[in-house]
């Protein structure tokens, strides 16, 4: 119980709440769309942090849960006329199931072998979906524009997905903190530090790792449904885009892996920066800055990885002892 009073938890929660509620109070659609992108990234990074930061298993294929969840949800809505909340839960459940089955098999691999296997899984699922007729094969699944009518039109449907993503982001944060401070989380961190020692100490590592994998897969599964519902269609190339996985990894590295606040700050900083660079009107000489956005994002990344590998939150905690009480 005591852990819920820790200021570190409240700092992170307030940041997420402030981000999530600003567009709702201002009822500004532009802010809402930016908020959606950021909160989606935050939730994605928090979920990846459970398996990568807490457990120490680097997954390059995290997007597979996002894609499969999205596909399942779209299938439920398109074929069975399921309402959005049910589809979201269905997407999450499908992703969790996949993680459970995979976990049993590939979590026996360690280090680089596990990382490579996750890429393989993503490619395999993408190819499977590309040839799976109920999911539309290569053409994917499309929702009629009239689908949004049952939620009060496209504008209201977009707001609904936004409330959904705010809810998921808050839940993800609470869930992540709960894991971090629980006995289960302690087991995960002992696996991260030394898996063999953890086993000797009584942690049932295969089960613990699988459970962590399931916990980290459920969230992206739900996010995928919201994103593709909002866009009105899903195709294999969008759903299983490896680049998105890698971006999530970068966000965690930026903010600080294994911390609660790290993925939040990392995702916020990364997405804000990309968004600003993409839409900036600033000119360098006669060339617009937005043509260089990838160069700048890349340089910044390089500097961070080279000089503060622990990420922002990790670095602050090392540097300033008093901050350790506020940042977790």
């Amino acid at each position, binding site marked *: 119980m005591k852990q819920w009073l820790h200021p570190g938890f409240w700092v992170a929660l307030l940041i997420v709440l402030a981000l999530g509620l*600003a567009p709702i109070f*201002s009822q*500004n*659609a*532009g*802010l*809402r*769309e*930016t908020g*959606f*992108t950021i909160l989606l990234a935050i939730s994605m990074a928090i979920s990846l942090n459970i398996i990568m930061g807490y457990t120490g298993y680097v997954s390059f294929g995290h997007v597979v849960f996002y894609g499969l969840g999205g596909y399942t949800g779209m299938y439920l809505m398109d074929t069975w006329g399921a309402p959005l909340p049910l589809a979201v839960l269905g997407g999450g459940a499908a992703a969790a199931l996949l993680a459970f089955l995979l976990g049993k098999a590939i979590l026996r691999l360690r280090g680089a072998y596990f990382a490579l296997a996750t890429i393989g899984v993503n490619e395999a699922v993408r*190819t499977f979906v*590309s*040839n799976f007729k109920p999911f539309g*094969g*290569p*053409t*994917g699944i*499309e*929702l*009629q*524009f*009239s689908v*949004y009518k049952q939620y009060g*039109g*496209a*504008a209201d449907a*977009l707001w609904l997905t936004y409330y959904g993503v705010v809810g998921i982001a808050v839940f993800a944060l609470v869930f992540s903190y709960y894991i971090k401070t629980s006995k289960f989380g302690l087991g995960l961190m002992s696996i991260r530090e030394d898996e063999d020692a953890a086993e000797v100490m009584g942690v049932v590592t295969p089960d613990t790792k699988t459970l962590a994998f399931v916990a980290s897969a459920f969230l992206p599964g739900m996010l995928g449904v919201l994103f593709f519902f*909002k*866009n*009105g*269609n899903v*195709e294999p*190339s*969008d759903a299983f*885009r490896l*680049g*998105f996985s890698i971006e999530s990894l970068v966000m965690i590295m*930026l903010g600080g892996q294994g911390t609660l606040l790290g993925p939040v*700050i990392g995702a*916020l*900083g990364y997405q*804000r*920066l990309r*968004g*600003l660079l*993409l*839409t900036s009107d600033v000119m360098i000489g006669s060339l617009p800055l*937005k*043509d260089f*956005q*990838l160069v700048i994002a890349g340089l*910044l990344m390089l*500097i*961070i990885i080279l*000089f*503060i590998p622990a990420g*922002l939150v990790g*670095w602050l905690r090392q540097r300033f002892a008093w901050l350790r009480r506020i940042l977790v």
Partner: protein
Amino acid sequence: MKRSLLNVLALLVVLSLALAACGSPAPTEAPAAEAPAAAEPEAPAAEEAPAAAEKTAVVGFTASLTGKLNVESTRQNNGFNLWMEQVNAAGGIKLADGTMVKFASKFYDDESNKDRVQELYTKLVTEDNADFLISPYSSGLADASAVIAEQYGKIMVTTGAASDSTYQKGYTLVYQAYTPASAYLTGSADLLASLDANAKKIAIIHENDKFSTDVASALEAYALEKGYEIVLNEGYDSGTTDFAPIINKIPADVDAVMGGGHFADGQQFAKSLFDKGVKTKFISLLVAPPEPTFAEIGDAALGIVGPSQWEPLAAFTPDYGPTGAEFIEAYKAAYGEEPSYHAAGGYAAGLILQKGIETAGSLDAEAVKAALDGVDMMTFFGKIKFDTSAENHGLQIGHSMVYIQWQKDAGGALIKQVVWPAEGKTAESVYPIR
């Protein structure tokens, strides 16, 4: 020494992140307050117009400046910009109340993926106050942006969003400039029928992605209806380089091979067909053949037919806008290269908007929609007419593909000739090719 440098650098990073994170809500919020206000003056501005007599309409879009669709997207932008420069240089478009409208464009990079498409289109509409929208390149991205266009009641012209399904989703403000995917290869079946009444066996081999699959299934349905026999219909993964296993499945007595996907795979497929000595009388492939660099595969390119949205050779007589020759000349002068069909498509998107606004005599979306529903015009790009039924609203039904074939000129060099439709052809088809 080293430590202080590290600290400074880290501080810089922290600062820039903090700036990125906190600094930005302010600029996004400021226009937000204006946005509702800015939307309203739209109409009053038109009434005040006699005093000002000139206004600027903003056309917003995202373009794939980075990522896999960069080349096509850049050419399309060039074409559109050329249209805008010409209209503005001519003083703009005159509205019913005498106001002259000039155009400005506002665009962002969508990085060829869907992640930010809706975010950027919302920004274009609510913060940049775009009056009209043009779709991103490719069907998937266009679908995502159409949700926003419909929501804010903005007309959107799509270029490079060929899949028919986009127009069957119930949108009312989306208009297609290109021939839809379902009609990409059906002309090949017609061409084959005109060449040889005894050719009956077609093998369809296509890339396993949305666009190519849409094209292939429409072709199969059409060919079956025309009495052809489909002896093989097989998809290959995007990025395939070894076509031997698929080619081995083609029956020996096949008359025609059709399909393909995008440039690299289409070119490789054509080369493999040649290398493996497949005896077929007719080959028609998507996307790759119209590109000038297709000829790099030498004799393997000879006789290959390909559909193109537009070809500089095809001479239509326009009743609206410039002639093909005028467009080519202006484009060459502006960008120093031959226009591709993407460039022509970008220009055509501008022409469609221009026609809609001129006919409506206003910038009001409802009026322009009514005008576009009635459009039936011949441009240098081809005929433009939209489906107005509820099921397929906005689908392009006027425009048709032209089919080119690689042939040899008198000197033995490979050149493109238009061979179909019959009214536009510049040479007779070579048949059978092998």
